[in-house]
């Protein structure tokens, strides 16, 4: 079973050394999603809706990213995969 989706980080090759296993994956140029939140809050990661209430973050942006997350989760669940460890550092910006 091989899952491919534009919202999933692709795994291109995998090979091994004498000491290490290597997984060659897609490089997401724009960094982590948590960095995006830090820039918008100028602090550490804050609860997103508090940013919205203060007017620092537009709710349409959040709707977009939430929709992306729901999209990929729907795809995974339709293919019988449970993530089991969903958190902010696992999201990247393409």
């Amino acid at each position, binding site marked *: 079973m091989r899952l491919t989706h534009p919202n999933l980080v692709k795994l291109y090759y995998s*090979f091994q*050394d004498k*000491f290490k296993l290597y997984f060659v*994956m897609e490089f997401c*140029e724009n960094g982590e999603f948590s960095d995006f939140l830090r820039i918008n809050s100028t602090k550490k990661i804050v609860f997103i809706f508090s940013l919205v209430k203060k007017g620092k973050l537009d709710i349409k942006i959040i709707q977009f990213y939430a929709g992306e997350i729901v999209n990929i989760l729907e795809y995974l669940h339709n293919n019988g995969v449970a993530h089991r460890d969903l958190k902010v550092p696992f999201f990247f910006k393409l």
Partner: protein
Amino acid sequence: MDEDFSNAGKLQDPLIPPPQNPVLFTDDQNITKLNPNDNDEVSSLKNNNEKNDSKEENNEESKNIVANLESNPHLLPKKQHSNPSPQLKTNKVAPKKMCVDDFDYMRNLGKGSFGEVILMKKKIDEKLYAVKAIDKNFLYKVLFHFRGGDIFVIVLF
């Protein structure tokens, strides 16, 4: 691609003569057009078999099989797909096997729970990839930890 491979695998069957044109079995129109040419090749192959083997039984069997195949050529691709030769798998795996030397080190991207992630540039097409490198010794330790050294503990993979 698959049909080309299947035609290559057919070479292993000694009784069935190999087709010279791999295009034969891709399109139904080509089969009807190219059948007379194929008959000539088959006759030449029969002569080769007589020279090499000098066994009448094999030739008779091959003639019977060839006659069956000529009457209904659609049997051929089905047989090939049901019996893929062991050479095919090695041919498919062998050409693309990467190693670390195919990449140039750029910088460290960060550390995950299992190992570090390195930004590397592929030497051939100069594209950037994120390479996750996991230490094998660390993996053995983690697996042993989950095993617990107890046989009676059920392991969840």
